[in-house]
Every structure is written in C-alpha cells, then in structure tokens.
C-alpha cells in the first residue's frame, strides 16, 4: 500500500511540475488533440489522432513553423460532454492555444464555448453538426462538411436519379444520424417523393428483424440510413437474409471498409455519399505511403481532415508570424490553404466555403466506384 501511494505522489507531483513548466519552452507550439481515446467511439478518435500526429511529424520534419516545432498533446474526452468541458478547461490551464477536435458534436459544442471565451483556436476535423458554427463564434473552424450539405446531396440524387416508389428513411437517433436523415427527408419531400417510413433505431442494437419485416410489408424499395456502419452493416446483412429486395444509401459514417466485413456480400451496391477519397488522390501518394509505412490506415473518414486541420493551424501561424490566435483567425478567413483535402477556404462562420460530396457505389470487397 505504501509503495502505491508513493507512486501516486510521484505521479501527481510530476503532473504539477508538468503544469507549471509548460511555458518554459518557447520553441515548441503545443496543439491539443482532443477526442475519444477510450469509450465506444475510440476507433473514430484514432482516425483523428493518426492524421493529426502525421501532420505534426511532417511539418516538423520540413523545418517546423517559423523555426518552432509543433507538439501534439492528446486529451481524452471519451466523447462524454462532461469530460469535454473538463478537458477544455485543462487545455486552457496548460496554456495550449490551438485545438484539433473535438470529435463528437455533443462534445465539441460545450467545449467550444470555453475556447471562444479564452481565445483558443479550435479546428474540428470531424464534428458535422450545423449548430456548432451558427453561434457567431470567431475561434471555431472545421475542415469537414456539414450534415446540412450532405443531406441535400443525397436527397437530390435519390429524388432525381433513383426516383423510388416507397422510400424509407432510418436513423440511429443520434445527433449525426438524425441530422442527416432529417435533411434528406426535407429534400426528397420537397421533390414529391413518398416517404413511407421515418423511424429511429437504437445505436448499439444488434437485431433489426422487426424493422426489416415492417419495411418488407410496406414494400419499401429504397432505404436511406443516417448513422454509422455497425448498425447499417447489420441491417444490410439481415435484410439479405430476410429477403428484403431494396437498395440502400448512407452518409460517410457508413463508408468504411468494416461495412463489407460486417455485411459481406450484402454490401454490394450500397450507395454512399463521401467526401472525395483523399487517400486515392495521386497528389497524396507519398503521404499515403507514409501512413502505410507506419501500419496506419489512411482511408478513415477523419484522417485526412485532421491532417488538414493541423496544416491550417500551422499555415495560419506562418502567415501571421506569431501565435496570436485573433490574428490567425482573421488570416484563416481571408486566405486559402493547400492541404491534402484540397484547397480550403473558410467562410465567416468558420465552415469550409465548399466541401463536395461524391456518391459512390460500394462493393462487397470493400472497394468503391464513383457514380456521378
């Protein structure tokens, strides 16, 4: 017992010391990487962390920013809003002025209140909820598209190209899934498509047989699913088993190799709205190779957006030749940045001026081909 408390003491003192000396090194610029390292969505957090870490490594290898090196510090919020606020206060406390994160919109939202007040520049690479940038904040940016962009893209394609007789829209009752699903619903209804079902499922559920039987009864011929791949994968698999003959479509949250692993042959022909796959862009070849050399998967949805988030911050620091976040936020709004996710420009709200979504057809071996 004594030994243990001694260890605890050492840890807490070293923590305290680490807290006080954070200003000592003027030659490193700290970037907080905030997102889930533990918890049920840790796998998405991984994507963000490897992308951001890689960017930091590359930038440092190329001589850093204005001669200073970047340092990424991981802050785990477990996608829990309560911990996100604690993490945000810790970041303020540690004197970090730049944040890449958070991941879940419900964590990003309360944390961004604190960053805005304290003049900390936050770039999220993964939170797609429109609410985050509609509050007139200056310090909040994102390098990913919004649910409200993606929904209409999918909705227009369904209404103009597919023209289903009986459309079902299913979502997972979470911020991301329901947000996109409702945007799709609005778009298709304005174009006169018959939405016969609009229903939520519980994230984490495994059995969708009851829902599938219901869709069979309603003669649904096309299903839009707002949510992530684990649930849609199971819905696809169980639909095939129960003989529901319908086409499926989903947002980028389902466009993940794992969906083919889960659904197998049933994932053939699934349509997915995705950002252009940056890892297949020939210009990113060397970057993709660096990821592969480290045995990391560059195809995750948030890997490249996180890379861009770090790059945008670094370029902002370069442009203003300093770490004054207020100057940087102005620079971000008035310049364009060349990143692996393309040439980025931010609007007044802090969103990207354009973020395209492309419709892909998914294949059962985990590959995809563009439809448009």
């Amino acid at each position, binding site marked *: 017992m004594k030994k243990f408390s001694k260890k605890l003491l050492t840890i807490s003192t070293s923590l305290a010391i680490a807290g006080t000396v954070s200003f000592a090194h003027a030659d490193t610029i700290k970037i907080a990487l905030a997102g889930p390292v533990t918890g049920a969505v840790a796998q998405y957090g991984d994507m963000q962390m490897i992308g951001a870490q890689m960017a930091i490594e590359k930038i440092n290898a190329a001589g850093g920013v204005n001669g200073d090196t970047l340092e990424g510090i991981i802050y785990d919020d477990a996608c829990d809003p309560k911990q996100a606020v604690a993490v945000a206060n810790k970041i303020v406390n540690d004197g970090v002025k730049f944040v890449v994160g958070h991941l879940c919109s*419900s964590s990003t939202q309360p944390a961004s209140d604190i960053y805005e007040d304290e003049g900390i520049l936050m770039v999220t690479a993964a939170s797609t909820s429109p609410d985050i940038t509609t509050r007139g904040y200056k310090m909040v940016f994102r390098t990913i598209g919004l649910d409200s962009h993606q929904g209409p893209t999918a909705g227009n394609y369904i209404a103009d190209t597919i023209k289903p007789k009986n459309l079902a829209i299913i979502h997972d009752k979470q911020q991301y899934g329901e947000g996109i699903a409702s945007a799709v619903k609005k778009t298709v209804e304005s174009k006169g498509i018959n939405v016969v079902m609009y229903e939520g499922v519980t994230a984490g559920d495994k059995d969708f047989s009851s829902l599938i039987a219901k869709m069979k009864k309603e003669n649904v011929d096309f299903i839009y699913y707002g949510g992530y791949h684990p649930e849609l994968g199971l819905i696809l698999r169980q639909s095939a088993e129960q003989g529901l003959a319908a086409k499926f479509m989903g947002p980028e949250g389902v466009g993940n190799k794992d969906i083919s692993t889960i659904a197998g042959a049933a994932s053939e022909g699934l349509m997915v709205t995705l950002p252009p796959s940056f890892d297949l862009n020939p210009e990113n070849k060397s970057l993709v190779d660096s990821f592969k050399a480290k045995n990391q998967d560059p195809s995750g949805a948030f890997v490249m957006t996180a890379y861009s988030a770090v790059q945008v911050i670094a370029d902002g620091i370069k442009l203003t030749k300093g770490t004054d976040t207020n100057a940087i936020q102005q620079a971000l709004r008035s310049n364009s940045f060349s990143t692996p996710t393309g040439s980025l420009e931010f609007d007044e709200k802090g969103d990207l001026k354009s973020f395209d979504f492309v419709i892909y057809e998914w294949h059962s071996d985990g590959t995809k081909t563009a439809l448009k």
Partner: protein
Amino acid sequence: MISQEKIIHGLIAAIATLVLAFPLLGVKLVTDGISPHLENADTNTIVSILVASLAVFFVQVFKDHLSSAFSAIPRPDLLSKIPRPTTTSGRDKAEKIATMLLIAFALAWPFAASRGSVDLATLVLIYVMLGLGLNIVVGLAGLLDLGYVAFYAVGAYSYALLSDYYGLSFWVCLPIAGLLAAAFGFLLGFPVLRLRGDYLAIVTLGFGEIIRIMINNLTSLTGGPNGIGNIPKPTLPAIQTEPDLALVGLEFGKRAKTEGNIPFHEYFGIAYDGSYKVIFLYLLAVLLVVFTIYVIRRLVRMPVGRAWEALREDEIACRSLGLNRTAIKLSAFTMGASFAGFAGAFFAARQGFISPESFTFIESAIILAIVVLGGMGSQFGIILAAIAMTVLPEIAREFQEYRMLLFGVMMVFMMIWRPQGLLPAKRPQLEMTHD
C-alpha cells in the same frame, strides 16, 4: 513448508490465468477485407502472459508467507485518525469547528489553484451533491435506486428548457428544477415503493432508461439527440447605481449575453479573466453543497430522518410501531430526487449544453458507487468518495487508453480493501452513563 495441496492449487490458478489470457491477449482477430484471420501477438505479450501466470503460481503457493508479510503493514484506519471526544456535546463542538475549517478552506482554495483543478473540483462537488441526495434513498432509507440519474436529467432539462423557452434565469430555475425533480420522484415512487429490494432496483433502473429514451425521442420539445445548447451561466446578483438603482445580474463572459446584464469585470472595473467564471461556478457549487449538507443534517435529526433509518433497520418493527411505511419511503425518494434536481440544474449551467448521453445508466452506477464507497450514510465519507471517483480517472489520464481499465480495477479493489466504505456512518446513539 509448502504442502502438495498448495502446489496443486497454484498450478490450477496458473493454468486458469493462461486460459483467461491466451484466447484474447495471445491472438488478435483481424478482419481486413472480408475474411477474418488471426494474428499472433508480439513476443512481449506472450512473455508477459507467461510471466503473469508464473507470478500467479508463486503468489498462490506462498500466499501465507505473503499475507503474513502484508499484515505487518498497518491498514490505514481513517476513522481512528479523527479525534473523537467522548461526550456528545464535545463531539458536536469538534465537528462544528472541523466543518467550519473545511468550508473556509474550500472557499479560499480556488484563488490559489489552477483553473483546471478548480473546474475538476466543481465536477467533484456536483457528484458530492448527487451522492448526498442518493444517500438519503440508499444509505438512510435502505432503498436500492439504480435510476437516480433520471432525476438529475429532470433537473438539468428543467433549467435548460425553462431558460430556452421562457428566458428564466438560473436563480429562478434552481428551485423549480428541485421541485420538478421531487415531483417526478413522488409520481414514480408512488406505485413502485411497495416492491422490495432488488425488484425496486430494476424498476428504478427501468424508469431511468425510460426517461432518457423519452428525452431522446421527443425531439420537438427537448431537441432529442441534438440536446440543448447555449444555456446561460448563472449570474451574480448585484446592485446597480447608474443610471438608476436596480438589481442586475453580473455575467462572467466577455460580453453580456442577456439584455440588462452587465459583465462582471466591467462592473468592478477590472480586466477580463476567464478564470473568474470557473471560480464563481465553483463557489456556487460549494454553496449548494453546504446547503445540501445542512438540510440533510437537519432532516436526519428530525422524526422523518429517524423514521428512514428505522425503516432500513427493521421494516416490520417500524410497522408495528404504527409508522406509515409508504409515506416514509416516499418522503425519502422525493427528498433524494429534489437534490438530484438541484445538481442537474447546476450541471446544465456548468456545461452550457446538455444532451441525453450525459444521463445514461453508468452515471447512476457511479453515483451509487460513491454512496457505497463513502460508507452508506456518512456525509463526510461521501465527499471523500466523490473526490476519489472523480479524481482517479483524471490522474489515470496519464495512462491514456488504460484509463477506464484502471478505473474498473480500482472500483473492485476499493470494495475489497474497504468493504465498509471509506468512512462508515456513525449512527446516532444514546449512551447510559452511571453517575
């Protein structure tokens, strides 16, 4: 001497360790592409599994030697460290002084500590409030409630919705949130309180889930999974002299967000500092906790509090004394719920944003763990336990992805180490003395 039996015992334990570890740690199931395959873990993992099972073997074989060595180390007995005057009046006096000192320390501390720790302390205080509230139900009345988080959610959503729809301020909403949560406690408690023991536990768990799912589903009212954002922070009431005499609220943001409020730093003519807000929230939490402690202390000394404990000790004796079982249980349930309501409203104010995912079952479990670890019934113990349960995961942050793993281990370990809780409750008792 090492007997043969012990060696066999050690072998069984060592083999069990191998069986436990190998299928999950020794191989990794990888599903790249469509067909899954197994990958062997690296040599390090294999070696550590073998070392672990060897260690288990030796620990089992030399268990007696080890435990005799360990018993030489004294177990910390927190209770005995606290001075305990024998006379009742002396004890009261000592307690009063200790409480005063503690409050004084709690009030002065944030001005010396860092922003992160003050914020963490605020979180601890929220859990203290929740722990104290649940303690009425579980510790004092002996009713196992696994859905306490429901009332916490009711409190949080009361404030968020009232301020969102009607623009009511924190100070108006705080009592309303408590009352609403109490009303929910009363309504839910009424039908279920005739259930006993674990049946009550599962029904309360069910209610907790029902309320969370309803909040998630009623999107038009509660925002569903989107939650409610932009919840105003509490204001500090102050008197304004210019242009005319009026009561205003001081806000801690850079600019006042609500019409008629003044930013704190402008009112006092000092420079803006973000930590004022954090410190103010902390002090507010201290105030609420002190209020909670005070009220519960009074209640426990009142007939209703005595009835709670009597009911826990012996239900049949209670009934034969003519006490109304349902009324007593209901009062405990309602009182407990109201404190969760206060805590919820404060939580919503601290977060500025709430969504149903903050009110899951695991939250109830953690509050319950605080009560049990605290020693069921003892208020000081609950404060210690709340600190332990909130600060431990923060310290474990250093261990990154091992954080929650360690948290689970600590929960088990603390139960084994101190099954009676950190500070078991002192029961009020009368002593006969000879003169």
